């Protein structure tokens, strides 16, 4: 029991809190500076979504990474700030603050593991009912001749990223008459005619191969690629092809009397409703090229129900667990039509930060205002005594 008690004492101690706060401080500082050279995505992975970080300083510094640090901080906060803390009127404010912080950490946890985000880009007059991930990829296989009720067979992003460094894996489905072997996932690459001056990072297919590129600090700009090999289970016939994120036309394979298509594309998420873009407007401040507002008039279609809605900066559309934000405006050079981009987020903890902010604010006021009042009174008393004695 004493060991448990001592363990809890350490876990809930001010000392551990200080060390973890210092660690998070250093991670945040280093992670911010690292963005300059490696971009946000890499910095996030290295410092804030890791268990440990080795910081390149003259003497390498090993720090608990963001995941470990924040996990321990949550434990420390729970044990020290909620369970072991002395419960009294004086500590009420601090306890409330800790509850608020716990709520915010929970919101962060839910967002990290249970949210989806991407974008929906529509030209005026177009409609869509799915949004695309900014940086996750998937391989989709489908019957190329089917036009309605298309069934897609998907290989998810995590399975693709496991194939980096030339690794390969065969994927099988009883619904398909063939197997596919995917290999050599490249997070950022370019498909080029294979020449003598460069080493191919993939198979060479029809004179083309994939060339590895350094990952772009803006992770949305990366174009992934890999090699696909189809193998007909009945005939043993094979075909090799390249899949590249920028390619508009899918790779095809004849099997079981059908033509099958395969494509590497941004991961798609279905929405429980359809959005049609009726009109988008950009207004500039008069006499300048600086945008004052962007407004999209959309129709939300759900079954037979249609509803006209305006989405604009700071005023998103919230419906069906999704939030659609106005995030981009463009003009299609080919058609001349205006294009609107909506950021789409599914986040079960959408409003939790607001609730935690209110709780923390109340807690801080409860914790510090009485201190201030006591301080002012003490000063008044001291002055009165001083005047009396003089």
């Amino acid at each position: 029991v004493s060991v448990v008690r001592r363990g809890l004492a350490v876990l809930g101690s001010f000392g551990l809190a200080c060390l973890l706060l210092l660690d998070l401080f250093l991670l945040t500082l280093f992670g911010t500076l690292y963005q300059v050279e490696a971009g946000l995505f890499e910095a996030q992975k290295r410092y804030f979504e890791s268990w440990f970080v080795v910081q390149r300083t003259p003497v390498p510094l090993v720090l608990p990474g963001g995941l470990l640090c924040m996990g321990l901080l949550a434990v420390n906060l729970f044990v020290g700030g909620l369970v072991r803390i002395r419960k009294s009127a004086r500590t009420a404010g601090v306890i409330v603050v800790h509850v608020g912080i716990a709520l915010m950490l929970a919101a962060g946890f839910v967002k990290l593991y249970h949210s989806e985000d991407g974008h929906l880009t529509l030209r005026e007059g177009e409609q869509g009912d799915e949004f695309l991930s900014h940086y996750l990829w998937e391989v989709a296989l489908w019957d190329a001749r089917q036009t309605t009720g298309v069934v897609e067979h998907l290989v998810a992003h995590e399975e693709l990223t496991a194939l980096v460094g030339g690794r390969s894996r065969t994927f099988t489905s009883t619904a398909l008459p063939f197997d596919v072997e995917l290999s050599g996932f490249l997070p950022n690459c370019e498909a080029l005619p294979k020449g003598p001056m460069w080493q191919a990072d993939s198979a060479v297919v029809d004179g083309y191969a994939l060339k590895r590129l350094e990952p772009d600090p803006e992770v949305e700009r990366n174009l992934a690629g890999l090699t696909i090999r189809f193998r007909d289970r009945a005939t043993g016939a094979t075909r090799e092809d390249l899949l590249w994120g920028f390619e508009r036309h899918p790779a095809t394979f004849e099997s079981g009397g059908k033509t099958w298509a395969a494509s590497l594309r941004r991961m798609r998420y279905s929405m429980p409703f359809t959005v049609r873009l009726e009109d988008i407007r950009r207004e500039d401040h008069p006499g300048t090229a600086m945008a004052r507002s962007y407004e999209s008039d959309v129709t939300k279609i759900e079954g037979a129900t249609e509803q006209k809605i305006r989405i604009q900066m700071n005023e998103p559309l919230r419906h069906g667990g999704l939030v659609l934000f106005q995030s981009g405006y463009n003009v299609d050079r080919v058609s001349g039509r205006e294009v609107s981009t909506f950021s789409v987020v599914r986040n079960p903890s959408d409003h939790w930060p607001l609730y935690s902010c209110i709780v923390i604010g109340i807690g801080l006021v409860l914790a510090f205002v009485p201190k201030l009042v006591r301080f002012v009174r003490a000063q008044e008393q001291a002055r009165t005594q001083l005047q009396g004695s003089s």
Partner: protein
Amino acid sequence: MNLVRATLAVLALALLAPLRSAQTTARPPWSERAVELFASLPVQDGGRVKPLDTYAQFRLLRFNGRRSFRAQDGEKLRPTPWLLDCLFHPQRARAYRAFLVRDQAVLEALGVRVEGRKKSDRYSYDELAPGRDRLFSEGARIHRIEEKRRTGLESQLYVLALNLRDFESLIHALDFARTTLGTHESATLRARFGAEALRGVSAFLERMPDLRANMEGELAALGDDGREAELLVMEEVERELTGVLHNALPLALFPPPDPAEEQWLFGDAAADRASSGERPEELALLRAWESLERSKGEAAAFERELATLHARVTSLAERRGEYAKVPLELRFYRGDYFTRALVAYLAAFVLLCASWLAPGARWLVKGTWLLTALGTLLVVVGVTLRCVIRERPPVSTLYETILFITGCCAIVLLVTEWIQRGRIALGLAPVMGAAGMFLSMKYELKEAALAGDTMPSLVAVLDTNFWLATHVTTITLGYAAGLLAAALGNLWLIGRMIGLKKSDAAFYKSIARMTYGVVCFGLIFSVVGTILGGIWANYSWGRFWGWDPKENGALLICLGELLILHARMGGYVRDHGLAVLAALNGMTVAFSWWHVNNLGVGLHSYGKTEGVLLALYTYYGLGLALVLASFVWRLGARSGGPARAAGEPGAAR
């Protein structure tokens, strides 16, 4: 300014022949009334309607680095008279040494040699004119280079090219009023405009509908030879007209009568509309500018014509509901609240120093109180007027954060002094006030160069008074508290090390208490402000936290302050540790406030602002040196060195 437009203008002007150099020409001094009327003319610039004086101030500030300068004949020129000279006496304006060149290497790059000048000095347009063509071609070249990849010299060349281009557009602005059209050389035009050459363009524009309707028929009735001769004259008139109208009034000084039309017109567009025969307002305004130009030699006539023009423009602006704030803005800048606040703070600081030398003189303390309160009042009035003019909460730009933080620090210090009466907060208030006002003046110049003035229009996502009032104000209060705590911490460290009031333990206890209180106060605003920022981001972009450098900066302040409080509560630090951590937290605030904007990444990246990084590194260096020195001092105190003998804390424990 639209960069594409800027480049085109640089290129277009590069094609023009350089202006002839000329000697400074004399002119009668501008009357007060003329300056007043001209200063309060409304102009649409940077997306809002402002007084012409504001435009002139920031244009001159950008060219010259100051709002006033002295001409070679000794006359002190302020912005509006300078702008009047640019428009009405261009030959004189060209001779003013109004262009600041920070490094002579710029002139060397242009092949310009001016003897007897300092490395950083001011030059006239006439002095720079020999290098003009090369400057504009360099400007066009540098424009294609990404801003953060430009060398220091390239940046300076580019700024000078833009300044010279803008200046040229000003001195050509009234060419349309000064020009003469050879209408008397064509029989067809002579019949309409008389036997003399036509001065100005408004009369010609007025008859354009008639010319469009009848000219073709009249020319057809002439014989071939006659028609040919008429056409030659008309081509010449058209060329002259097109040339002067192209440069006509490059300021949006023509409010459209239709309120639905948001954009005010520049001179060329106004002339275009005036020629339609259906826009009498624009025609009348062009005519008014021509009359003004013609009357410039006679002060009374000039005032009269200016009053007519002023009445016309303001009545149009009033009808559009866009004039109400113009006189207020004029009064705001005339009030010069922040310079006066600086003077008040500096005077308070002088009295404070005197009060240290003569501790018994209570009037010196009262004077410090009064002057500090006056300085703070001036800051508050200035910030409030800015809020009224902009119809915005107090903070929406980096410049405004300086004013707000300074005002808040001074108010908190005065309130603390009111409660504590220890003269510690009173001693710090004028120092922080003066430092803040000085910084605001330095940064005003940067903002003038970046955004045109210090009340710029806001991009779409920032155009929300609710979030500006809540998140931005709160987080800025957090910055203010962090800096205040750092100032107190530094005061503690410096005081201890130099032996100030070394026998007065209560003095240092008091500073430590104040530091702790301010950190607590700061934590409330930093935490709430940071979370509100996340909520704004969540409601605007769909993510509460994105590890953006500015968000991280705010988080660093929260973590730093939480660390201070936990370390204090856990007993890991006492007064010295508290002072050290508060001083270090000041660097975190500086990092969050300024440094992250200069990293070149993230949503709050404003590009590298010249001089900011150097100032920051200096602050970090001095701050760290002070902290290290305090540890050395403390070791000395503990080992029984001189500090112990002097009754320092090492001796006390």
